[in-house]
């Protein structure tokens, strides 16, 4: 409960599509944000984020009575318009997966009935939410803004201008012309899950040659002024079997790959071609942004901004001095932007003009709760380092240096798609077999993608061609390290780097430093703490179950270290080889356009 009155409490909500989330602003300060899937354990849970709301408000010491406004991240009427149009010539679209989905009242009903909120509701356009999630959290005094995704209501790409307190969208490209959908269509064609497998395609690209680039360019016509259109003969976004037409297969000359089947050179080449055209297009869109808004700064968000290879080219080759990409660039991050826009509408002022520095916005489990939880297990050989952080870090760093894979659980949970040292799996990036080991034992994923490195910020320049902070693992850059780092180095010698500072990352920073003291390597491999198909762990129990179900060597739960050898036999019998219940609410063969 809050007694201060220094500004409105605004809750941003992203929901009803996939991966719903809330963000809470108090007087223009972002105090918390969380994905609903982490609480319900339903991968990409699209339901109204009732549990994320409860926990996020509670963590902030607030209740629903303190909330002044709920901001919803898209306009349901505009979305309904697009849905009705998509269903043509049928009115309304009556296929099974459209049934009951044409419901523009649902956001209001769910906010009122499920969240219990009767107060002011602000509707913020989908791309304005994306734009605001970038601009208002960039700290820039002014900026050009570019948002690119698959689809929101109608817009799929927008250009905007941020100027002090104000942000406006000044241009757009509309559905069905969509760079995100182009990428997703070919992602599906390559046999990966749509909306999930896009970065696998990006990861596959460096293995290929762009020999299909001219064919991919036939799919998208980028004009001289920096807008684009798709050639719609190649797409059928309503087809539940896949969004490309037969004509697409004909044009590409690459048959659709069966999911989970062998990845061949031709698939790598197609991925590389798609990636290249995406990069060229994004550069053209950014150039247009500069022409429309001649600022030194660019802010980016939307799902396509998660394509770190493409955004890197915008950073390096684009016309802007400074680029800020919202780390939660996908739709979950729309909750941040919607809240920021509502704050501006209520107060006339932008939220605190400071660069977002941390994505550690979710709830934490107090160390004494972890201790209580472990105590019930009775006398075990779990190592207790309470009040001895130095010894804890020494123990963990020793294990890392000895080649152990560590499940690392500490502090507030991350918001956004990346694990950034709170719910992470960590390992020595130097081992030749580390990538395969983690892939086989935890991720059960395609072995072609490297993992990401987390590096002490002050040492980043010695190992990567990177001259500025990259706290959100959003930038890819060349590995220039004198060390051999096979587990985190891509075939094109690139890596997706997270820079870590003591100020923002605390214990995680000190752990890497302890590792460096032992190895002269200021870098650890950092990947998200979850099994394939499961949301990132939230609670100590989630972490323990993931530990048991995988072959991670050691689990660090706040101040406790649990080696695999210390696990009770019964736990291993009960859980080894089992999988978390596979619950997913979202189709992975087509982009859910409803």
């Amino acid at each position, binding site marked *: 409960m809050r007694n201060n009155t220094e500004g409105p409490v605004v809750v941003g909500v992203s929901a009803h599509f996939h991966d719903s989330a809330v963000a809470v602003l108090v007087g223009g300060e972002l105090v918390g944000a969380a994905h609903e899937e982490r609480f319900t354990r339903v991968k990409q849970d699209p339901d109204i984020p009732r549990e994320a709301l409860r926990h996020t408000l509670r963590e902030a010491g607030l209740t629903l009575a303190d909330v002044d406004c709920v901001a919803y991240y898209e306009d349901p009427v505009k979305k309904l318009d697009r849905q009705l149009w998509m269903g043509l010539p049928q009115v309304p679209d009556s296929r099974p997966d459209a049934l009951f989905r044409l419901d523009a009242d649902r956001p209001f009903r769910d906010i009122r009935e499920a969240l219990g909120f009767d107060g002011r509701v602000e509707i913020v356009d989908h791309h304005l939410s994306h734009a605001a999630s970038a601009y208002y959290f960039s700290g820039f005094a002014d900026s050009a803004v570019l948002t690119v995704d698959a689809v929101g209501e109608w817009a799929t790409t927008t250009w905007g201008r941020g100027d002090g307190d104000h942000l406006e969208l000044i241009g757009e490209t509309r559905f069905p012309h969509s760079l995100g959908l182009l990428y997703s269509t070919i992602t599906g064609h390559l046999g990966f899950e749509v909306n999930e497998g896009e970065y696998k395609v990006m990861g596959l690209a460096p293995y290929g040659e762009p020999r299909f680039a001219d064919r991919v360019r036939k799919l998208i016509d980028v004009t001289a002024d920096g807008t684009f259109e798709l050639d719609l003969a190649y797409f059928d976004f309503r087809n539940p079997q896949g969004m490309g037409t037969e004509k697409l297969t004909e044009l590409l000359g690459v048959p659709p790959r069966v999911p989970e089947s062998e990845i061949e050179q031709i698939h790598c080449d197609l991925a590389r071609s798609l990636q290249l055209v995406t990069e060229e297009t994004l550069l053209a869109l950014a150039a247009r942004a500069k022409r429309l808004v001649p600022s030194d700064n660019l802010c980016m968000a939307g799902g396509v901004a998660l394509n770190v290879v493409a955004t890197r080219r915008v950073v390096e080759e684009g016309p802007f001095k400074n680029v800020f990409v919202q780390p939660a660039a996908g739709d979950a991050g729309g909750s941040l932007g919607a809240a920021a826009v509502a704050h501006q509408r209520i107060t006339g002022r932008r939220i605190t003009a400071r660069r977002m520095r941390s994505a550690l916005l979710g709830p934490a489990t107090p160390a004494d709760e972890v201790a209580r939880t472990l105590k*019930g297990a009775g006398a075990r050989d779990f190592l207790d380092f309470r009040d001895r952080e130095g010894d804890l870090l020494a123990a963990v760093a020793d294990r890392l240096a000895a080649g152990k894979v560590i499940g690392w659980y500490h502090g507030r949970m991350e918001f956004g798609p990346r694990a950034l040292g709170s719910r992470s799996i960590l390992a020595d990036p130097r081992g030749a077999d580390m990538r395969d080991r983690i892939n086989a034992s935890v991720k059960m994923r395609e072995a072609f993608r490297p993992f990401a490195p987390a590096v002490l910020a002050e040492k980043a320049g010695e190992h990567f061609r990177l001259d500025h902070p990259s706290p959100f693992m959003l930038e890819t850059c060349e590995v220039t390290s004198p060390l051999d780092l096979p587990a985190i180095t891509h075939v094109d010698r690139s890596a997706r780097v997270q820079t870590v500072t003591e100020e923002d990352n605390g214990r995680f920073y000190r752990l890497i430093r302890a590792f460096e003291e032992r190895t002269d390597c200021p870098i650890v491999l950092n990947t998200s703490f979850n099994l394939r198909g499961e949301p990132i762990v939230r609670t100590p129990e989630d972490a323990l179950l993931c530990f048991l179900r995988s072959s991670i060597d050691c689990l660090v739960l706040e101040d406790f270290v649990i080696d695999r050898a210390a696990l009770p036999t019964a736990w291993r019998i009960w859980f080894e080889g089992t999988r978390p219940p596979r619950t997913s609410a979202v189709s992975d063969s087509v982009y859910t356009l409803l």
Partner: protein
Amino acid sequence: MNTDDLNRTYTRRLSELLSSADGAATLALLQKLQRAHAPEPDADAGTDTVGVWRRTGTELVRDAGRREEWRYWADLERVPLPVDRRRVVLLGESAARGYFFDPAHNLATLLGEALGRISGLSDVQVVDLARTNATHVDLEATAHQAVALAPDALVVLAGNNWHNLDLTPAQMQLLAEELRSGGFGAARTLFHRLVVEQAGRTLDALAATAHAAGAPITLVVPEFNLADWQDERSLVCPVLPGEDSRVWLELRAQAQLHLARGEHEQGAAVAERMRRLDGGSSHVSARLLADALAGHRPAEAEQALVTAKDTVVSPFTLHSPRVLAAVQDEMRRKADEHGFLLVDLPKLLRAADGDRAPGRRFFMDYCHLTFEGLALTAAAAAARLADQLGAPATTTEELLSAQTRPASATLAVAHFLAAVHNSHYGQPAHILRHHLDEALAQDPAVAVHLENYLDYQTRVTPHWMCASYEKSAQVPELARYLVVSDTRLTGKLADHDLREEMVRALESTGVPTAKRYEDLLVAEHARAESDLLVDVAQAATFRERRGSGVGTRTAFLRAADLTSEFHLVVDEPTDTELRLTWRLPAGETDADTVHVAVNGTALAAQRLGTAWQNTELTLPAALLRRGRNVITIGWPLRAVDGDRLVEDAAAALERGTTPSGFPAYGHLFACTARPLAATRD
């Protein structure tokens, strides 16, 4: 303007005109109008799949890929399928699994033993394909798979889960219409008809499958624990039109008062009035009527119990499994039509017990049989099968008389588990006591499982992590029921009544427990700040957990009755701040008085409106005690907006979602307690 531009204009205007709730309903209705009602084709599982097993040449081998489902089925790694033996396949649900006795004993093992006692049938193998939680869909699929085993006969014990219908949009529309015209009572009646119709179709399908396999069916008509089961207190009365809900609640209080005073005639009269008011939609009125009639009009009382049992069945709430009287009748009718052999448990159980309504002698809970009940069922089925399989005629009684008693330890564990299960379905203390006493009487050594339960249920540590759980899980029946991977059955609850009954039972048998239990409770739950909305503080039953049940899942707690209870654990009592974020649901008044009590002593009367309000109260140290304290919120007795809630529920059905039929009497978003001494430092 070209066509495409015009289309965009049309859809934009339509979206504006259809953006409201009515617009969404309009679109949904148009979608339904356009949809063909072709049934979805059933995806047939791989032909070698039988339950969780795969059929190889001569045996069934459990499929490792379906490990998460193993716990629902017989706990058998391999099932041999010898070619030289005749086979009886058992199909059914948890009642046939022998819940609480499985895997030590279940209906299949008992049936096998009973058949073994019949001369000439010693070669008959019973294959156990009963599955916990099986619905009619599962049953039909399993029957289909069973054909591959070349059965000589099928035995079916099912029907308790047949109310779990997957409603089609069309059925939901019909329910919406009934709801609008006749309220929840009428919708419930229609739903029962749908359940009975589905039961008929399922029985027809079983008959066709059995016919194709050339295997006759012995159908067991299930029965319910009429005498001793009470549906839990959070099931009150569905929304009534207008202001009837307030009148009904007032009558409930009157009826309870009459019964408490022994005024049975008056009690019965008031219960009848309630019944007329709720249109047969609340089991509470039927139950009160049964209680009022019990002493002097036993036949009518039993009929009222049947009504109470059936009344609970609706799509608008969660409830324990059970079979409708109308489904039992349908089974008899279909048995006649298809020539099934019949084991009519309702008749059999009454005949075995002086024509009394079946109760705890035969039931461990709502529908799961005691060992005696299982043995009787098995004997009756075996007696029917004898003739079919060409053996000399025998009787149920004859087969039963040779039945050996199970080990005392097995009975003790089963009753211990039943106490836990009954508690989590809100059964009264005397039933919990019955099972705990029975457990300890059968085998005093069961005490260790009670002690272990007190440990792992009280700890915040998940069951599976607790050393105490690991010890108890050595017992296969216990590991089966409280299975590690089931977060529902092993989730922590505020089952203090159960735990205190356990403490009492242990102390009475000379096991010193009380002090140790209290210390653990305090160590685990006394906090600088306690969230009283978490399950361990407020949900005594599965149903009371926030987020469980039917209807919109909410970010706040909906009070299901006029009182809500919260359990606060403190160490040494100190003044404690209670912070509430609460409101009244929309209703006949915009504000009313809410009462808060601590351990039965009134603390505050607070004016509350329909907007969220943060309230701080102080719980004085003098009203608190070390260990568990009960904070009670008494919500005002006022009519909910019945007409609006009925319309909302109908609209939800039209949207393809199932609404909750029960009103909320109060809403709580937050309820936290902080000992003030702890606040200061």
